[in-house]
């Protein structure tokens, strides 16, 4: 309508009609059609110390119709938690969003319990969100969360096996924290140098200790010796991610659609040599008897000055802080080089259940968790570091301000500066594989078998186990 046009009587009547209708409606009570309330079931580690609460708060603030029910599952290690999820599902319980580390990622994906996320990510209207996220996350973490070409979990955290030092113990024995290019021989020298025994030959201060489990344990020695439990292959696929979000990044060179571990090589010379190294240290009294568990005993050893070195990731910093160790009492370095300096890591994130009752809301929870907003709110990464952030931006000096270690850059450098770094072997049958691995390990570490015999037995058990598996990998 032009400004100079005169209003006709018809226009006046129209306006009067609309105005009257508006006046009538303004006097009526306002009726808002509320969205149906939705509850999502999210796996959590505990209720009292639930670090996911801030994420749930962010979700509810954005979507007031959503509430979160926590499915609390605990275990001493990832495979035990995975077993509980499976038992839960077997019992007919449902879960919308679960958490898995590398140990169980292919297990849930291979069983069809977790849903692939490729279409959700590529079809998301907010592509800036994903461009920002992937630019901040090293592609090796993303690849470790892939199975047969699809991504099942956007990584939230990771832990590379690095070496922690009790700096006071080192200093008392005239050692400094070594540089990143230290070797296996340097390690042995330090371990022996800081070990202290009493008059009866019992060890008072151990040079080196570890937990019998899949991640950490003696697995880093297998990697740097040039071995592995299984051959490491790559599934085809994943280009939607590498081409779409990592274009031009040299770190994606040679990456595929996730790992395939299918031929056991547990008794290769390299693996035998690695086991022999840790068995020798145990027989010398440099290492205590090895047990399974959560590592609580080791933390105690460490905090009371009874232990000099142990394999751990960023999560150890928070634990040591909670045990009373001050910033500066401990530090960290890359795993020492042997035949190579190939590092290992495990990563973790949330997965969306294929049969989720509220998949959209569950996916929204997952997105918020890996957003910058989510990382800033998450108690996992500040003020006391509980685990290493998968986003580079949240593995910075500020995140380690209260805990240390001084060498915190080592955590992300393990990924950024070492292209050969790869995940621990964790095929869809990782649970029974882990039982075989820990059993064989303790056979050798208790003196019941020689390293060669223990690994020969491990190899034959892994071969039998692998032969029993269904066709998990597409080209089998």
């Amino acid at each position, binding site marked *: 309508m032009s400004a100079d046009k005169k209003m006709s009587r018809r226009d006046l009547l129209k306006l009067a009609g609309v105005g009257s209708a508006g006046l009538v409606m303004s006097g009526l009570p306002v009726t808002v059609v509320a969205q149906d309330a939705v509850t999502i079931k999210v796996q959590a580690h505990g209720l009292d110390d639930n670090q996911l609460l801030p994420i749930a708060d962010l979700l509810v603030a954005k979507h007031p119709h959503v509430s979160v029910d926590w499915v609390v599952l605990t275990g001493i290690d990832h495979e035990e938690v995975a077993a509980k999820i499976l038992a839960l599902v*077997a019992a007919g319980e449902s879960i919308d969003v679960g958490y898995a580390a590398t140990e169980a990622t292919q297990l849930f994906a291979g069983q069809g319990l977790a849903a692939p996320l490729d279409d959700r990510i590529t079809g998301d209207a907010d592509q800036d969100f994903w461009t920002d996220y992937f630019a901040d996350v090293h592609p090796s973490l993303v690849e470790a969360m892939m199975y047969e070409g699809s991504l099942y979990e956007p990584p939230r955290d990771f832990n590379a096996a690095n070496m922690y030092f009790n700096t006071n113990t080192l200093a008392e024995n005239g050692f400094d924290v070594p540089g990143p290019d230290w070797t296996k021989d340097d390690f042995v020298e330090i371990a022996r140098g800081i070990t202290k025994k009493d008059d009866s030959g019992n060890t008072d201060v151990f040079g080196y200790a570890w937990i019998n489990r899949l991640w950490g344990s003696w697995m880093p020695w297998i990697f740097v010796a040039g071995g592995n439990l299984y051959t490491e292959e790559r599934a085809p696929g994943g280009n939607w991610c590498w081409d779409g979000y990592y274009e031009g990044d040299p770190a994606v060179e040679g990456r595929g659609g996730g790992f395939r571990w299918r031929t056991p090589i547990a008794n290769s010379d390299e693996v035998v040599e690695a086991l022999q190294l840790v068995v020798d240290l145990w027989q010398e009294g440099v290492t205590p008897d090895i047990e399974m568990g959560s590592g609580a005993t080791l933390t105690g050893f460490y905090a009371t000055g009874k232990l000099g070195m142990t394999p751990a990731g960023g999560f150890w910093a928070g634990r040591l802080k909670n045990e009373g160790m001050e910033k500066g009492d401990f530090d960290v370095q890359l795993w020492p080089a042997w035949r190579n300096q190939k590092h290992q890591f495990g990563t973790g994130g949330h997965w969306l259940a294929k049969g989720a009752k509220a998949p959209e809301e569950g996916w929204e929870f997952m997105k918020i968790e890996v957003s910058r907003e989510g990382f800033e709110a998450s108690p996992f990464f500040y003020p006391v570091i509980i685990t290493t952030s998968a986003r580079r931006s949240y593995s910075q000096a500020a995140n380690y301000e209260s805990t240390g270690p001084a060498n915190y850059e080592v955590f992300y450098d393990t990924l950024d500066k070492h292209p050969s770094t790869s995940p621990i072997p964790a095929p869809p049958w990782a649970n029974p594989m882990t039982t075989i691995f820990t*059993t064989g390990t303790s056979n050798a570490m208790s003196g019941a078998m020689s390293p060669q015999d223990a690994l020969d037995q491990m190899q034959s058990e892994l071969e039998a186990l692998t032969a029993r598996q269904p066709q998990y990998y597409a080209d089998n």
Partner: protein
Amino acid sequence: MTTAKGAADSRGGFLHWLLQDTMDGLRRRRAILGYLFLLPTLLGIFVFTAGPVFVSFGLSLFRWNIFRPPDYIELANYERLIGDVRIAISFGNTLKFTVLAVATQVSIGLILALAVHRISNTAMRYYFRTTFFLPLLMSGAAVAVVMGYIFHKEFGPLNYYLGLMGVQQIPWKTSADWVMVTIVITSAWRNLGFTFILFIGGLSNISQEVLDAADVDGAQGFRRLWSVTIPLLSPQILFATVTGVIGAIQVFEEPFIMTRGGPGNASRTAVMVMYEHAFKDIEYGYGSAIAVVLFLVIMAFTATQMWMSRRWVFYQ
């Protein structure tokens, strides 16, 4: 074909039969009322006890991981079980544990009961009864966690005090030679209260006249214990042994929490292997086959014990 009239007649016949105003009718009504009261329990047993047992038998003939359809494989799970070295070791460990644990629980429970029974001070008797019985009320998991720390080789208090006496550190949980002893001590410590209280009850029921008669006949001390007291306690000993064996064959908490079956397979038990296969490895068929074999083993042990009891159990 039953006609509508015929059906009505038969219903009427049943009601008439039930409601007859005779002694037989009254007995029938009482019997039916009794069965009605039994019905919830019978249903519970069928749904929660017998049902799962039958389902386990059925499942053991399938390969099933809950995510894929079950695959009928006849007796393949049992064939695999026969050749499975870990199964053989775990059943052997279970047998070793059962013999050691039951013998320890019964013998020490009996010794403690005899000692406490002789205490004349009532307050002290109650004190000891409560003390010995208390561990039984504790959570098995909690006991295993605490015992795990106590038996720690380097930092456990047990080795610390043994060290003060000049004993070298004992690898309680990390040596294949020691680990079963550790599990037995832990289990026996917790379960001792049951056999103890059972024997205390049995000793209280032995007639003083019989004991006095034995005295008169010259049976005192060990002779009276061996020839009079123990035979009179034999029903309690049988009960303690049968329930002890059934419980011991199913041992899980202590080895699972304290050692995870290690070192190697040295403390891996039959129920642990069953749990690992069914719930960790999601092989429900194979786990069920192990459960079936375990069920048969327990049944065989119990039947043998009951059969042998005819030779040594004396009922007053």
